[in-house]
């Protein structure tokens, strides 16, 4: 696992987190958050924690995102 | 000789139970009176039953509960406590009778009499407290129980006076509590059964803080200047409550706290070495003079009496802080002398108000012809305060003067003389007005107060005379005071 790849992945995580923080559209924020979860999952796979990576993929990126989508659907999409 | 006996606890306990009964059955007039009078008389009987033993030098103790390591609740009837308990419980009987007459038609009688009965049981609790914690507990309960009495009429003025009263006394109580904790921290005990539990091994700075805290805490209730602000305002309360505040319980409890602090917490020798007593004496002397001067200018009779109380109660503090046996005797007997004379005066003021509706001094012209017995009692009390021989107040002043000579502080004598003159200046005009000035308008026929008001007044006035003339008779409370002094000075 090359260091470059590590750095790219981590940079992506930070960038995704910033997008989640600043996006006014909650739907977009949730989707970016989902991709953030998948990137984390990838990272942990390389860190020798495949079981945690799987859990994160299923629960963190999957279920959590679905929950957010449902909540946004029932409330409002725009952040004021 | 110490004897384990339940009576020191029984005395406050019984009247607690009776007070509860007043709350429960108070709606029925007869039951209420029954429980009121039982509370007062049973307690007096319990206290009196210990008197013979006490005169023989027996100390009754009873430890209720010991939580841990010197913290507990206990009762102890030593000579000093017995003296205070005797004064307050016997006066209580008189006050109860008077209050029943005075509050006959009041709407909130149940609450009034319930708390009234509670007050005196807490006072006896203070008198018999074995340690500072028990003392503090009853001391705070007294504050709480008197609050509903002060605000009894629930007018805005009364409510505000009540708030002032609570603010002063609760903050004072907090000082006492901090002081108590510091005493425990320093010595590991809180017992009041010794002539001084603190000793010189504790740093003087710390002792100074403890002394300041305890004295400041007790002085708020004693209404020592400059902490007297609540007392004149609390005059909005009904007259029996004023009697309670000024003579029987509240200010007395504060003064008793100071006496306990000086004699039982610090002890004579330690305080003498430290020299803390002199500032206290000076403060008391200033209070005596200044309060008297203010009293002269009060037009309202009850307010004039209030300032007179501030002045008179400070005699106890002054005498206690002189640290000599004669002065100590004066401090203790003054509990009785001040209480009897002052309660007489308040009874008179209340009787006048109830019978004629007059509250101002200048309205009293000629009232001596209308209510001769009542005003006669007032005259006796006034002469006692001025310090005329044969009246109770003379004893106090005599012993304080002896104490002043004993300690070599000649200026105390000056204070005594000045205060006597000032006392004369604010009491004698009233007597003069009452007897030697014609009543304005038509001549009024003799119309005394109703018996329930008059009889307690006369009884108290008679006691003022008795204490003044027969104090040396064996078996009179005077010998109790002497026993207390012997204990304190380890004689």
């Amino acid at each position, binding site marked *: 696992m090359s260091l470059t790849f*590590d*750095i790219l992945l*981590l940079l992506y*995580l*930070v960038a995704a*987190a*910033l997008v*989640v*923080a600043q996006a006014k559209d*909650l739907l977009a*924020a*949730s989707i970016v*958050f989902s991709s*953030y*979860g998948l990137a*984390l999952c990838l*990272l*942990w796979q390389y*860190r*020798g*924690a*495949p*079981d*945690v990576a799987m*859990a*994160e993929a299923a*629960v*963190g990126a999957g*279920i*959590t995102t679905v*929950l*957010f989508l*449902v*909540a*946004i659907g*029932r*409330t*409002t999409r725009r*952040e*004021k | 000789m110490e004897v384990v006996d339940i009576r020191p606890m029984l005395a406050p306990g019984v009247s607690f139970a009776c007070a509860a009964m007043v709350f429960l059955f108070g709606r029925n007039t007869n039951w209420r009176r029954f429980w009121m009078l039982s509370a007062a008389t049973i307690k007096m009987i319990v206290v009196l039953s210990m008197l013979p033993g006490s005169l023989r030098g027996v100390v009754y103790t009873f430890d209720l509960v010991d939580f841990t390591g010197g913290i507990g609740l206990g009762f102890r009837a030593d000579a000093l406590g017995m003296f205070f308990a005797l004064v307050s419980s016997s006066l209580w009987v008189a006050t109860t009778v008077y209050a029943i007459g005075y509050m006959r038609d009041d709407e909130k009688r149940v609450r009034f009499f319930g708390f009234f009965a509670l007050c005196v049981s807490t006072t006896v609790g203070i008198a018999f407290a074995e340690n500072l914690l028990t003392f503090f507990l009853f001391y705070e309960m007294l504050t709480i129980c008197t609050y509903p009495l002060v605000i009894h009429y629930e007018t805005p003025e009364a409510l505000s006076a009540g708030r002032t009263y609570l603010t002063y006394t609760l903050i004072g109580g907090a000082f006492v509590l901090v002081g108590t904790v510091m005493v425990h921290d320093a010595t590991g005990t809180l017992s009041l059964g010794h002539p001084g539990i603190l000793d010189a091994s504790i740093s003087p700075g710390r002792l100074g803080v403890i002394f300041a805290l305890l004295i400041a805490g007790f002085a708020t209730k004693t209404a020592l200047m400059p902490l007297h602000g609540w007392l004149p305002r609390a005059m909005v309360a009904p007259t029996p409550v004023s009697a309670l505040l000024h003579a029987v319980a509240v200010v007395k409890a504060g003064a008793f706290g100071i006496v306990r602090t000086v004699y039982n917490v610090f002890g004579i020798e330690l305080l003498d070495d430290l020299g803390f007593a002199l500032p206290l004496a000076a403060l008391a002397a200033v209070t005596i003079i200044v309060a008297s001067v203010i009293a002269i200018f009060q037009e309202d009779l009850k307010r004039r009496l209030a300032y007179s109380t501030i002045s008179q109660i400070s005699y106890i503090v002054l005498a206690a802080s002189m640290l000599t046996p004669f002065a100590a005797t004066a401090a203790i007997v003054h509990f009785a002398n001040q209480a009897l004379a002052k309660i007489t005066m308040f009874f008179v003021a209340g009787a006048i108000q109830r019978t004629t509706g007059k509250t101002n001094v200048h309205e009293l012209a000629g009232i001596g012809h209308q209510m001769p017995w009542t005003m006669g009692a007032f005259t006796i009390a006034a002469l006692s305060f001025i310090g005329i021989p044969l009246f109770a107040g003379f004893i106090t002043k005599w012993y304080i003067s002896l104490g002043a000579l004993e300690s070599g502080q000649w200026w105390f004598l000056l204070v005594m003389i000045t205060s006597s003159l000032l006392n004369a200046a604010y009491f004698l005009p009233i007597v003069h007005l009452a007897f030697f000035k014609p009543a304005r308008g038509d001549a009024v026929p003799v119309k005394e107060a109703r018996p329930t008001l008059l009889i307690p007044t006369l009884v108290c006035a008679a006691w003022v005379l008795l204490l003044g003339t027969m104090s040396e008779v064996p078996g009179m409370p005077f010998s109790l005071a002497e026993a207390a002094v012997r204990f304190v000075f380890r004689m």
Partner: protein
Amino acid sequence: MIVMLWHNIDYVASVVLFSIGLYVVIAKENLIKKFLGLNIMETAVFAFIIALGMVEDGRPPIMTGDAQGPFASPLPQTLVLTGIVVAVSTTALALTLIIRIFRRFGTIEANELREME
């Protein structure tokens, strides 16, 4: 200093992510946004703990007959697994509450809700 940071790049990233998450939780008014932020905080902590358990060229700590070390430490991984489950339940509960708040008050902006109280 730079070298030290370089060697601990995972930790640095975790702390950065954690701060971003904390910022969102504190500064954003939208309740859903707050919870996105909280999730970022949580994942940052997970990443941190996983990085702790990392052994240079370690294998997954899965026991098979002929497995040979070095293994990544199993303990932090179980901790993180639990954490993930907890995080998702917290989120579920929070979002339920948010939906109910929206139904009652018609808004999920914290500042507007404060005014309504």
